[in-house]
């Protein structure tokens, strides 16, 4: 048997790559990242806008919720960077989801702050920071996607 006959077939290799390319993993990664960050930011706003000093156990509970949210965000980030890479189209979708999630979280944080009559400035400042970051990512992802589309069209034309 020669080397070519011993070689793992390309189709088998493609099959082994399937888990990395699964859309479900990418959706899970983006959801974990966004919901973790939004949850942590929301709980932090609740904590910061408490009118009076909180009992020790409540502070521990708030702290745990924030850590939990950040842990989910780290898991999502790890999935995206190490397990399920986002291609150009995925990045555009993920970035617009981030814009929507950060906008909704900011609105929620502002509503809580208004209701409690404290911390509105901090909620708006923090929230708009997230929204701005998400917008920058969305614009960059869109520009990269368009650049690749132009490149694909040019190469297809050259090929005839």
């Amino acid at each position, binding site marked *: *048997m*020669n*080397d*070519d006959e*011993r*070689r*793992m077939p*390309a*189709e088998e*290799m*493609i099959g*082994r*790559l399937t888990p*990395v*390319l699964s859309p479900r993993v990418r959706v899970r990664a983006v959801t974990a990242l966004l919901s973790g960050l939004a949850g942590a930011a929301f709980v932090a706003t609740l904590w910061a806008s408490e009118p009076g000093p909180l009992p020790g156990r409540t502070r521990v509970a708030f702290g745990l919720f924030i850590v939990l949210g950040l842990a989910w965000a780290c898991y999502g980030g790890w999935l995206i*960077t*190490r397990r399920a*890479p*986002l*291609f*150009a*189209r*995925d*990045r555009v979708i993920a970035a617009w989801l981030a814009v929507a999630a950060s906008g909704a979280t900011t609105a929620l944080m502002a509503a809580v702050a208004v209701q409690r009559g404290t911390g509105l400035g901090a909620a708006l400042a923090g929230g708009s920071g997230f929204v701005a970051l998400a917008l920058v990512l969305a614009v960059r992802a869109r520009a990269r*996607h368009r650049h*690749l*589309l132009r*490149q*694909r069209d040019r*190469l*297809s034309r050259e*090929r005839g």
Partner: protein
Amino acid sequence: MTDELLVVRAQLGERGALAELVRAWHGPVWTYARRMLDAQRADDVAQEIWLAVVRGLPRLREPGRFAPWLFTIARRAVTDRLREEYGRAEASREGEPVMDDPAEAAVDRAGLVAALSGLPVVEREVLVLFYLEDLSVEDCAEICRVPPGTVKSRLSRARRLLRDRLAEEEPRL
């Protein structure tokens, strides 16, 4: 379809294009891994290489330079595997043929492959990239991270070593 177009389509997120890219390049990747390692490890390392390619593909800025980029990843994976194993087996295996299965070696011995597998890693690597993968001296230099002049001198040394080994084998065949 050209590799560049396939890469761009894969970067956009077309799974069909990525599969096409794997079909087109799995053979050369496996051959490179196989010439540097044995058959079983070649399969494992080829999978590691493709996983790294899929993870890194969205960040590749020059789709037209896919081949050197791919072999840079392949070389890193092979080097990591060799380093890991040399770490375990100490330096005593340095210079020995990578194939240690006698049956496997017997099958291949008649040809160039056995002589190639007996060359030191540095010379074998540059021979595989230049002759078997058909890459230019400049691409080999980029992949191996050495100047083109060093690639040329390694090629020259590798050819000499290979010629000597084939001459040694000839009377036995």
